[in-house]
């Protein structure tokens, strides 16, 4: 529950402070956000499965973000940044969908 409140507070803070994204972070932030969302949905699903572990959530969150950012970085260096970003977004989107589907089955048995 506390992490959920944290998410909400973070959104409010971002809206209020209106920070500008530093230039070096701009290619990575959207992908990192998607990766983190995947971790969050995975965590929620783990909670419903009854196998949630805080530490696992933290580690998976961080590794998700870092790997996603690294893939984008590598893609930019190789000259296929936009294509690789699309690929990462597709993969993470599929994972998010499957996680949401599992959550839905847990909550509504449907």
């Amino acid at each position, binding site marked *: 529950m506390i992490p959920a409140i944290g998410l909400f507070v*973070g959104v409010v803070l971002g809206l209020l402070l209106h920070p500008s994204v530093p230039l070096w972070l701009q290619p990575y932030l*959207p992908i990192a956000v998607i990766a983190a969302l995947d971790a969050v949905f995975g965590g929620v699903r783990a909670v419903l499965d009854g196998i949630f572990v805080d530490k696992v959530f933290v580690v998976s*969150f961080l*590794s998700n973000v870092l790997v996603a950012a690294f893939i984008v970085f590598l893609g930019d260096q190789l000259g296929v940044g936009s294509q690789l970003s699309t690929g990462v977004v597709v993969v993470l989107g599929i994972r998010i969908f499957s996680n949401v589907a599992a959550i839905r089955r847990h909550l509504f048995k449907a």
Partner: protein
Amino acid sequence: MAVRRPRRRPGSKAGVVTREPEEPREVTWRRLRRMFGARATRANVLATVLTLALGFAIATQIQQNQEGGLATLRQDELVRVLDDVTQRSSRLDAQVRELEVQRNALQSGADRAKAATEQAQERLDSLAILAGTVKATGPGIRVTIADSSGAVRASALLDVLQELRDAGAEVVQFGTVRIVAGSYFTDAGTSITADGQSLSRPYVILAIGDPQTLASAMNIPGGIVDSMKRLGASASVDQLSTVTIDALHTPKTPRYAQPVPEPTVAPTGG
């Protein structure tokens, strides 16, 4: 990624928690409720920090995206935009150069036209003075010939005019008649006419030119003043700093004479 790992529960046996496919619905909700109960472990706090950062990042990214502009474009897109802008700028540069050339041409044309107008105005002024169609003013002399006996004839006045012209008179007026290139004097009984208008006595002659030169031309021995005296008339000369000649001559359009067209290209010697 949320790796689901076997979870060790306190109070329960170590081991893999196997999920029955048909868990009762209440179990799920109970688990959710339990998660809502705050457990301020270090990992939970860390997770809270992470989700807080995630929320912050989401809000930031959304705002950044809504601001739009070039900041969200990728490198190749930026390169394309830059290419477009560069092409556009070079096109506009070329246009600027073209317009500058045009402007310079127009400016020099205007200058030339202005110079031509000034020249034409000067020419018009001098020609108008020569033709007697404008009033003229300047230094000069006034010659007054008192001829009570009527001894002065047209030829004598013509001598006066010749003498004045010889001395460099630019504009001459006899009585109320402006003297031009085609002016003439005739005897009409006892009076004299100039250009068909009779002159009243005494004859007053105004001339613009160097006053000293004109006066000395009148006064030299054997000159106009002397010859008038011989005729029985008297002539007096006044040097004036300003002579205003206000009589005008109406030029007639020549009936017979035609200007010879000037050759536009000077003939070469061979």
